[in-house]
């Protein structure tokens, strides 16, 4: 007996919509089992993890603030993944974007004008895009595997950040702490709704909505989908795979870089060695959980941000390991991909025939 995956004739659109919800349900179930096995009350764990952050205004705002970079990065990654470009290096693009964006307030602290923040955002996007173009160019010219190159560049970027904040960009008045000088007001994202949310949240939502329209309605969006599903048909349509690789990497890197700049100029107001709790990697899950659709990604970003806040919640309230958030995020990606597989394929049990040598009858 063996299991075989058989391709379904046509996808069920209802199941395609339901699959993330089923995946979240399965993740909650698995999380409950993990809580129970590690000796905690599973219901209390689930409540603290998934529900409690939604009940208080400050935690709700913190969740939205965390969701913002996830959504922005996830949208860019969706374009990459839809077009069959496996950019795993958004974390590095996020960091390099933050570095490019911070260069202005750190190197020219006295340059304070209305143009400061917009320039920073442009630099940030540019930096992220340039960093992302490295694996794209390597893929086009040397046929390298972009999964490996984009991932490896994450570590280069994070060491670069580490070097700069401990070395040349360290705050001269900072008692040798590894951090840059604080940004001036002109270099700070304005707050909105008088809370912990900055202008980056509305900017992100607008970008996601624009991208949703581009993907669904324009020829560029059509090109992205065709190239992802069937490159041969894409080249028959007259689309260039190489140009699209450059485009999608530049877009994803640009958005990740923008997210990086908005993160440092929004909440942190300075460069630190730890500007990202793994946003670039978590955004991969966000992109898939959101069905590679910007609207879905907005929702998925919120769910994943919840897992950060909820993870902190169960850690402080119940003493569960702080690794629990990562484990639950990983489980979520696993279940999303498994559900997606079952939308495209069904499982069939196949029994082997008896070896022919002994049996001489038909």
């Amino acid at each position: 007996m063996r299991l075989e995956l058989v391709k379904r004739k046509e996808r069920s659109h209802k199941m395609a919509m339901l699959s993330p919800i089923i995946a979240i349900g399965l993740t909650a179930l698995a999380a409950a089992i993990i809580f129970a096995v590690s000796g905690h009350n599973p219901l209390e764990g689930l409540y603290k993890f998934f529900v409690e952050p939604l009940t208080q205004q400050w935690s709700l705002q913190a969740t939205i603030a965390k969701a913002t970079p996830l959504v922005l990065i996830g949208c860019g990654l969706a374009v990459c993944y839809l077009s069959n470009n496996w950019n795993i290096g958004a974390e590095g693009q996020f960091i390099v974007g933050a570095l490019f964006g911070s260069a202005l307030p750190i190197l020219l602290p006295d340059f304070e004008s209305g143009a400061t923040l917009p320039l920073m955002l442009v630099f940030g996007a540019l930096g992220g895009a340039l960093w992302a173009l490295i694996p794209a160019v390597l893929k086009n010219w040397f046929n390298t595997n972009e999964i490996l190159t984009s991932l490896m560049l994450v570590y280069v970027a994070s060491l670069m950040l580490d070097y700069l904040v401990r070395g040349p960009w360290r705050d001269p008045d900072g008692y040798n702490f590894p951090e840059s000088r604080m940004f001036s007001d002109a270099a700070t994202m304005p707050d909105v709704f008088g809370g912990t949310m900055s202008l980056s949240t509305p900017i992100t939502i607008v970008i996601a909505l624009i991208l949703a329209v581009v993907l669904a309605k324009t020829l560029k969006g059509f090109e992205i989908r065709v190239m992802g599903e069937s490159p041969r048909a894409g080249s028959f349509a007259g689309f260039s795979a190489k140009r699209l690789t450059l485009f999608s990497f530049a877009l994803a890197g640009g958005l990740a870089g923008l997210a990086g700049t908005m993160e440092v100029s929004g909440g942190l107001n300075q460069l630190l060695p730890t500007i990202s709790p793994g946003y670039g990697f978590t955004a991969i899950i966000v992109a898939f959980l959101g069905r590679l659709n910007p609207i879905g990604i907005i929702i998925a970003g919120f769910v994943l941000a919840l897992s950060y806040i909820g993870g902190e919640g169960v850690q402080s309230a119940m003493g569960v390991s702080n690794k629990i958030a990562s484990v639950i995020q990983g489980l979520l990606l696993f279940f999303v991909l498994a559900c997606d597989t079952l939308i495209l394929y069904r499982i069939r049990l196949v029994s082997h025939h008896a070896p022919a040598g002994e049996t001489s009858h038909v």
Partner: protein
Amino acid sequence: MVQQTRSGMDVLLDARGLTKRFGDILANDKVDLVINKGEIHALLGENGAGKSTLVKMFYGSLEPDGGEILWQGQKVSIGNPAAARELGIGMVFQHFSLFEALTVVENIALALPNPGKMTELATRIESVSVDYGLPLNPTDIVADLPVGIRQRIEIVRCLLQEPQLIIMDEPTSVLTPQEADLLFLTLQRLASEGCAVLYISHRLEEVQRICHHATILRHGKVVSECNPANETPATLASMMVGADVASVSAGAQKPQVGEIRLELSNLSAKAATPFATALNSISLGLHAGEVVAIAGVAGNGQGELFDAISGEMPVSQEMVRIDGKSCGSRSITWRRRQKAAFVPEERLGHGAVPGLKLSQNIVLTRHATGDKLTGSGFVSTARANALEKHIKQEFDVRMSHDDPEARSLSGGNLQKFVVGRELDRQPGVLVVNQPTWGVDAGAAALIRQALIDLARSGSAVLVISQDLDEIFEIADRIAVISRGYLSAAEPAADMNRERVGLLMAGGAEAQGEVA
């Protein structure tokens, strides 16, 4: 009567009335085949004649719907390839199944049921391979080896299991003539030791040279058996393609031939991969009003030629001209704007995106051709839907519900859609690769008639096909492609199946080399 001339030998495999059906198509229709010990037995037939289906049933990868297989007089059912190997049936595939990153010995170990120690296996490989004149270095990494050596690995892998019957599917299609000569020596040696070989090939001279017996399949049936030594390539070819000439409907209304619309001059291109075919200075002029067909056995450069004409594989600018404009290095979109249209061989995944709706698949080839499908970057869904409805009606595309995904259509219906999508544009030049491959008779007739009608309205139509019935039915002129060489296109009235068969079996190549 043929049986009697071979009656003195031991029968190894005796297939009786083997039948295999795929949907509506009878791939094998009561096939009888006898293979004797120590015999090199050729299996001949056009593409789609049912050769692969038949050997897959011997090798256990397909189950027969009817009939029986006797192995050394015993009735057997061969459930899977492992069972076939246990009986002593080995197979060498046309495309190899080797792991490039592994060494020779590792690859062979993976295929053996009990490989034993690697070092011992390596010595066995060395001795067997040298013994049969196919020397191999067990520690070589497959990625570094040329195609001929890779085939040796497959053969040695087979030999290590001491088979009594080796099935070879077009083994020489990837070999140079010198490598092929070496292979023939090995096969003759094997035969002299009593091992039987079932040899599938399109190369008729080869078959004549090394095979003791030949079985010819046509449309899933055994049409004749013979001793190749008593035949000529011409008689073998006519047995393969059948002597009955179909009624030529296109010849009745002689075309008004106009100016040249598509011109290929000395079109050459290197092979992009080891399995691709190089194109060798192909020249052809296609006039308004005519249908020109290119015949040939699969894998002789048809796909590459199509890609060069469509623009998916850029060549030198002067090699391709559409309505007098040089465009060898122009994009497919540029060529479409010159009123050229293309229908590739593979419907799903090349001509259409499986997961997209039909209306979106219309956008695929017509987004830049003035159909108002796009405006300032946006795709007009309404316009795409309207075109989809129109094509559906015009070409009788049947579907279970409105605007389904391309993958859910049957082959014939999807082909009608893919052809209809291009014909609907009234293209000036149409290039079609295998227009009716795997399509039922009704749909095939509709498509062929549409192609003739398009030509008669002043367009130039190039049909690449392996189906000689089809070619004689619709072509005004016929050329033959063989190993990337194209014979001169001659009026269909001056051609016959024998001549086409000879050109297919290498004559086109000889002609091309002289030219």
